[in-house]
């Protein structure tokens, strides 16, 4: 299949030749690149850099191009085995999503919908406002750099050794705090017995035994307090870990189903 190939943005020009990927034999001290890559304060900062570097309009980002360049940087960081903050990958996913939305055929109705880039643009512009004002604040006259305070020593003055004062009510309030906390612990301690995870695991197995699929939410008893719900959730996780049940979701945001991996009948001898 023929399709126009978009020229890759060079990230360096060496002796008039554009380099689009790192020459394998070229040794760049990892520290130097690390310093360069760490100069970015996050994915928004990196995106703004890519956009500004090419004099592109933030309000009309060529999303395909920027996505590609962004991913190049991410890959470069990965190649160098630099630890990559999760936010960078999240942004890559967001760019890919916007790109795919922009590729959708435009029908009359869709045309009136928001530009898929709108949210990204809003975030970029918002971030840029604070970034630029922080540079201005950085230039304000500050103490110890632009302003030197005048002080006189208090040479023959002995600063009195002042001990903090407390009032009896302060002490009582402190102990009430202690009691409240201790009460919290003892409640947890008390709850532990009736709501053990092991017990709940058996209950769940009973519930789904012999059925094809049980809805995930049906496993929870909404009459229970939060602690009870958490215990149920922990029990489900434990059952998954022990490979006793399988949790499946057919589609994004769809209903989650729980199924027994091995039927009890088959599992038990006779």
């Amino acid at each position, binding site marked *: 299949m023929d399709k126009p190939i978009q020229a890759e943005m060079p990230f360096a020009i060496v002796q008039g030749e554009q380099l689009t990927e790192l020459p394998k034999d070229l040794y760049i001290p990892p520290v130097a690149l690390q310093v360069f890559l760490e100069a970015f304060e996050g994915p*928004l900062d990196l995106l703004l850099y890519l956009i500004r570097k090419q004099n592109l309009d933030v309000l009309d980002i060529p999303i395909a191009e920027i996505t590609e360049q962004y991913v190049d940087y991410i890959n470069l960081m990965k190649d160098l085995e630099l630890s990559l903050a999760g936010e960078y990958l999240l942004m890559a996913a967001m760019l890919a999503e916007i790109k795919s939305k922009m590729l959708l055929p435009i029908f009359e109705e869709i045309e009136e919908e928001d*530009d898929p880039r709108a949210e990204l643009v*809003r975030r970029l512009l918002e971030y840029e*406002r604070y970034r630029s004002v922080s540079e201005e604040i950085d230039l304000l006259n500050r103490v110890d750099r632009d302003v030197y305070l005048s002080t006189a020593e208090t040479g023959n003055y002995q600063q009195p050794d002042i001990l903090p004062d407390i009032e009896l009510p302060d002490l009582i309030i402190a102990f009430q705090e202690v009691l409240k906390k201790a009460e919290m612990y003892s409640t947890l301690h008390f709850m532990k017995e009736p709501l053990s995870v092991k017990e709940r695991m058996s209950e769940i197995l009973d519930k789904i035994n012999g059925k094809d699929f049980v809805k995930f939410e049906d496993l929870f008893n909404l009459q229970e307090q939060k602690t009870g719900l958490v215990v149920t959730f922990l029990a489900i996780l434990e059952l998954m870990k022990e490979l006793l049940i399988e949790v499946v979701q057919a589609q994004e945001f769809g209903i989650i189903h729980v199924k027994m991996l091995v039927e009890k009948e088959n599992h038990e001898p006779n």
Partner: protein
Amino acid sequence: MNQIKNIVEALLLSSGEPLSADRIHKIINSKESCTKADILEAIDTLKIDYENKEIEVSRVASGYRIQAKSTINDFLNIIYADKTPRYSRALMETLSIIAYKQPVTRGDIESIRGVSVSSSIMRTLTDRNWIKIVGYRDVPGKPAMFSTTNEFLDYFGLEKLSELPDLPDIKEPQNLSLDLEPDMADEVTQVSSEQLN
């Protein structure tokens, strides 16, 4: 009167922090009877006395302080060479967001910067007394809300928050070619619903 001026000068130099006229009045009045007007007059006289000197009285958020005039910064830079604290871009951005959007939670800062806020930055800002917790937002998790302090303004030589540089205007993404029209339509709807109310 001259005596009060001299005490005010000595207090401003040895207090270790800026002093407001009220506070100076309270301190001096506890020993020697004086009015607040006397204090303000003393400060004004000091300002005049210092006109030919290389020091000056400056007013910041927490009060008055005495500082070297910038004309001798060249000399002082020799003494303080390399002792100037430096702050990272991340810290300055975090501080700016708190200053302009206060009170804010860590989550607010993170959603603007697009990265998680490092605990060490928040600790540095708190240790320097530039930010403080002013309350807890009434949402799940009860996150702490931060604001800037007077010490923050003092450090940057400001009297009040409104003296900070203006935050650049938002360039409205409305200009996006695709959604110009629907936005106009929305505006019309809003106007008409407003008229109904």
